[in-house]
């Protein structure tokens, strides 16, 4: 019986272990949810900075994604700002650009407000409109892609420092 494993099987085991670790960090260990909580705080800070009333921001949580849904009454200037000069001193970036400059947030989607008849503040849906509303790439996919990239870099380093047979001579 040949007990040696093929090279492809070893690579497959390593890749599977990497994906498992990334998923454990994302889901059961709560790193994915904690990261979205951090982005939610940044989005709220941006809204406080703009001082525009009756705006709400909700990160996409079903599924978890780096997309923020903003709902509320804002005109085109408040949304897009002026970008005559790219981030020049006379430009006002607008909510869309400020969200992207905050770091981590990948997309800004304006969710049409589903306000009640007498509501003064349009309520956002708690988790945003979801995947059907343009949630973008799920956070799990992004974390898995990053983990696979790191695994490939490690694989290259491991190939460089692999165990070689002892040399037979000075030039061998």
């Amino acid at each position, binding site marked *: 019986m040949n007990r040696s494993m093929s090279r492809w099987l070893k690579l497959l085991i390593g890749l599977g272990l990497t994906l498992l670790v990334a998923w454990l960090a994302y889901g059961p260990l709560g790193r994915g949810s904690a990261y979205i909580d951090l982005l939610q705080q940044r989005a709220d800070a941006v809204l406080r900075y703009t001082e525009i009333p009756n705006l709400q921001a909700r990160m996409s949580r079903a599924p978890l994604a780096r997309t923020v849904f903003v709902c509320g009454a804002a005109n085109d200037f408040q949304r897009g700002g002026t970008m005559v000069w790219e981030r020049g001193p006379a430009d006002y970036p607008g909510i869309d650009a400020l969200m992207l400059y905050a770091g981590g947030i990948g997309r800004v989607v304006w969710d049409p407000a589903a306000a009640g008849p007498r509501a003064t503040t349009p309520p956002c849906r708690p988790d945003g409109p979801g995947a059907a509303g343009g949630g973008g790439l799920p956070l799990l996919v992004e974390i898995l892609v*990053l983990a696979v990239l790191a695994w490939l*870099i*490690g694989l290259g380093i*491991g190939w460089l420092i692999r165990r070689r047979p*002892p040399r037979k001579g000075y030039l061998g």
Partner: protein
Amino acid sequence: MIDLALNNLYVLGAALVIGIATGRWAFSNRKATPPEPRKEDEPKP
């Protein structure tokens, strides 16, 4: 994406270590042939 990577450094570090271990495991080659005896060591007639 960079911000996401910086917030998941432990995961990426673990993936890097797993990659190094996998590379050393999958690409190791210890099947060495025994060295041939040197000619100087052969008994002279």
